[in-house]
């Protein structure tokens, strides 16, 4: 039996269809997977699998391979198609204001609230429009139409958005100016709220090899002979029967000795199997967790629903602090209030806020509202867990950490998730001071981020003084902020009954995780797309 015959017999029906489709196609130019799929009546995935096997068998070759840039709309882009881009919306809002007989001017704040635009999107759009001299900023902070011309950027952008709404397009379909515009408004690292995404895709053109053509001929003859064999009366040589799977039966009765086993084409891509595995982001968090335990940190847990006392009051955040606003924290509907705070504790915290109590502080100097302390909120910062630990007779020396789910009242977008993990904790000890704080942060930089170069910058947190930000040089991202920390203010520790200095620290690891997972949108950390989760291979 010749190689050709063996090969012909080894072909899967899909492979035969693909070979036929290739034969029908123009010989010199080659064909794409998509074209083959259409002419063979198969899925692109099936064609891909068949092509893979045919290449291993040497029947098909790649004629040419080119990298194409593919343009598609992001979630932001789809939203712009529906609602208009921020630029068009600003112009429309100003025009409609002018049409109602008023001066065609609005403040930036008006635009933000009326159009529900992100501050970032808005300032970029205003910047673009200013550059084009379509609007100007007048005194009083009013944005006005100059009335001289309309924005060609806004118009072209809207036209491109419309063009792309039906699916993916090749970047090369567009002219140079359009390409530049798409590139300017496409998602990149550090620029996640953009309407376009440009991906690179390899496009391969396939053609039959000489062997492929020979095998095809063989196939045609076999099928022709098959039809004619009855007439000619010449039976085909009986093909030798080869065994596929070894079975328990033939093992038991020893008949395997008489069998011939088919030789497999072992270079083929295997079938996928569903794996049991950890979520890639959780895998990352597990690693951090293990690091922290190895450094002597004890885990703390807290509740998703917290009262304002532990979420803010105990942290010396005044009740008028902007981060306590209805626009920054989620409030619980029912019940609205927690059980009362233990009286002595409440009194100490209240006096500290008002006049400083015995902490040596002047306090914030306002009338503290004890009822407000019981208002129930969704925990907005992991530090709430630390505050509870401080009040619960912690160990000295002691090190604690938590990986706590927190909630912020933010419009969900590529950089804001509705709930997210905060990794943070405390260190208590008589030897704690500013320099040991820096020492701890150096340790984190080395152990958690494997960073060699680090930098400390002054920072601000309402509950620590001094405060510091830890920046590290990441091998892909350059300098990034890895965490924030500080020494708790005495106004925090003393009312909770802690007499030693305490380090409060927090690590921001989402950006590192996103780079490791190759994603640009923070929502994808919690993606609902199983294919995406299955396809992530993460090497930390």
């Amino acid at each position, binding site marked *: 039996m010749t190689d050709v015959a063996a090969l012909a017999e080894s072909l899967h029906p899909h492979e035969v269809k693909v070979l036929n489709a290739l034969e029908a196609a123009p010989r010199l130019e080659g064909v794409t997977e998509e074209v083959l799929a259409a002419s063979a009546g198969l899925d692109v995935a099936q064609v891909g699998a068949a092509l893979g096997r045919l290449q291993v068998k040497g029947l098909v070759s790649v004629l040419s391979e080119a990298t194409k840039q593919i343009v598609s709309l992001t979630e932001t882009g789809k939203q712009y198609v529906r609602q208009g881009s921020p630029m068009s919306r600003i112009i429309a809002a100003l025009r409609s204001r002018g049409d109602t007989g008023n001066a065609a001017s609005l403040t930036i704040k008006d635009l933000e609230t009326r159009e529900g635009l992100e501050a970032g999107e808005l300032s970029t759009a205003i910047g673009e429009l200013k550059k084009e001299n379509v609007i100007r900023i007048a005194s*009083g902070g009013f944005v006005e139409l100059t009335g001289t011309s309309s924005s060609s950027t806004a118009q072209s952008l809207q036209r491109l958005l419309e063009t792309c709404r039906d699916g993916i397009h090749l970047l090369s379909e567009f002219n140079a100016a359009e390409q530049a515009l798409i590139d300017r408004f496409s998602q990149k690292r550090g620029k996640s709220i953009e309407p376009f995404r440009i991906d690179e895709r390899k496009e391969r053109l396939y053609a039959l090899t000489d062997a492929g053509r020979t095998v095809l001929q063989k196939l045609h003859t076999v099928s022709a002979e098959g039809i004619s064999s009855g007439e000619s009366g010449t039976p085909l040589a009986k093909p030798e029967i080869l065994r596929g799977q070894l079975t328990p039966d033939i093992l038991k009765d020893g008949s395997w000795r008489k069998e011939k086993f088919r030789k497999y084409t072992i270079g083929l891509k295997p079938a996928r199997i569903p794996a049991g*595995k950890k979520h890639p982001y959780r895998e990352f968090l597990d690693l951090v967790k293990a690091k922290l335990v190895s450094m002597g940190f004890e885990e703390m847990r807290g509740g*998703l629903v917290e009262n304002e006392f532990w979420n803010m009051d105990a942290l010396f955040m005044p009740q008028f602090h902007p981060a306590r606003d209805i626009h920054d924290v989620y409030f619980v509907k029912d019940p609205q209030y927690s059980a009362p705070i233990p009286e002595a504790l409440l009194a100490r915290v209240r006096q500290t806020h008002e006049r400083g109590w015995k902490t040596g502080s002047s306090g914030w100097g306002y009338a503290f509202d004890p009822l407000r302390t019981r208002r129930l909120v969704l925990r907005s910062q992991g530090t709430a867990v630390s505050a509870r630990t401080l009040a619960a007779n912690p160990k000295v020396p002691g090190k604690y950490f938590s990986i706590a789910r927190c909630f912020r009242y933010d419009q969900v977008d590529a950089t804001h998730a509705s709930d997210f993990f905060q990794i943070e904790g405390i260190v208590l000890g008589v030897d704690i001071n500013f320099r040991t704080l820096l020492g701890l942060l150096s340790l984190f930089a080395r152990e958690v981020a494997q960073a060699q170069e680090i930098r400390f910058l002054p920072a601000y947190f309402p509950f620590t003084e001094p405060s510091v930000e830890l920046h590290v040089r990441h091998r892909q991202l350059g300098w990034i902020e890895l965490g924030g920390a500080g020494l708790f203010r005495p106004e925090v520790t003393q009312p909770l009954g802690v007499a030693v200095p305490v380090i409060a620290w927090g690590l921001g690891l989402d950006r590192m995780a996103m780079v490791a997972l190759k994603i640009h949108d923070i929502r994808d950390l919690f993606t609902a797309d199983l294919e995406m989760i299955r396809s992530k291979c993460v090497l930390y």
Partner: protein
Amino acid sequence: MPTISIHRKDLERLLGRRVTDKDVETWLPLVKGEVKEHDAATGEMRIELQDSNRPDLWCVEGIARQIRCKLNGRPGSYPYLSASKGRRDRVIVERGLESVRPFIGACKARGYRVTEEGLAQLIQTQEKLAEIFGRKRRTVSIGLYRLPPIAFPIHYGLADPEQTRFRPLGYNDRMSLREILEIHPKGLEYGALMAGHSRLPLLRDAKGQVLSFPPIINSRDIGEVQVGDSDLFIEVTGTDLRMVTLTVNLFAANLHDRGATIEPVDVLYPYKTAMGRTIRMPREFSRPRSIARAEVSAALGIELSTRELRACLLSYGYGVKTAGERPTVSLPAYRNDLMHPVDVIEDIAIARGYEAFPPVMPSTFTVGSLSRIEQLSDKARELMVGCGFQEIISNILSSRADLVDRMRLSAEQPESQVVEIENVLSLSGDSLRQWILPSLLRVEAGSGRSFYPHRLFEVGETAQPDPGADTGSRTEVRLGALLAHAEANFSEAHSFLDLLCFYLGKPYHLEPVAHPSFLDGRVGQIQCEGQPAGLIGELHPEVLERWQIGMPCSMFELALSALL
């Protein structure tokens, strides 16, 4: 945390020297600033300022001022603060304002010709201060005017909203105060601050011209500062006298730094204030404090000599009265953020530079450990992975529609009780999940194109409403597992549950129950030690339809917290 826009040229003018990129990088830590964007062509920089207690730094003048202190090793001089006694122009406050918007402060700035850049900065500072520091103008709002048309004394009084008319910024026509509140964008935005008052604040000069309707809007005629103006009037109204004082001091310092001559203005009150009945602004108002050198050294972990300590304080802008072990220090007039000696200690560290503090490794020994629930969760997760399940992580903030309605839960079902949000931002996030299954269905619904079978699990937190709990709910860790493929059924789910409970060492039994999320007769309650600990079953086809899932699903969910 405000982000402001400044120009390098402007910064250079205020510092009197050239500024390189390297300089910016070196100096910004002094003001807790970070460059967010930098346009090399125009020299525009967007800088984020972190310290919400330092509004003096939210402008290029303030940033330059802090840098100058460091370069010169001492604070700048502001002679108008110690100006001689004598008669000054006045603002006369009328009775009745004590219950509406009690405080006003003002000053004049002469001889600084407003440039385009200067005007942009003035407006930016005005906005950032009123929005963030002044809490959307509630506690502080600011008005800027051209000085020449104003006749002193100015009257700060209350006016009838219907009868009083003037031409507000942004409009060509005269409007009554009522119309401004109802039509003008600023009226719509800030009008709520004036709710409940029948007579509203109004600022008028000696000739009766309206300057503004604080805190809403200025007059277009006097209150529109333009490029080229060189004499200005600044007025600040508010509900907190110290914040009003600070804001006047801050604007005075900014304009002084740009070359203006500041002339203080006296405010005459018909009622008592913490600073008396006649208040001259700008003014010194910080309370001096003594700082112990020993306390500084202990907190910073470094021994500072009395000379070094004094040098650090001066180079960060502090006034230092007495020297020695316990110097008396005072904040400059444009700051009001000293509550505790630790605030000064941080400034000393910043003045010295964080890089000048060698890190010391923590040396005390502590034992690391995980909580019991985390240990149990990790064990369960490992078993599920071993069983061939893919782990999922989902948002806990979810929607009642997903958690209850799509699961066919009716109001009688105890599981239909969820922790709901009062200030809902989007309908997809109005409740905390009370079980994991809907999170897994969300993944299944979005993953039809991924090859089957699907075996998913999540171990995560849920919120269980509980009137007996301090916060009205308990946070419970639950394990949810979902099987989705053509032959997914109860027995398969049961096999996995059985295996899991065996290896967790938790004997269980199943109790038949009626549950609308599942096919009748194919659902059970998991009980451990006689207590309900979860559910197992085949999902009801109507639930699958509501999720638009085209594959049979079976599942189980186990409350890990209940197994501890």
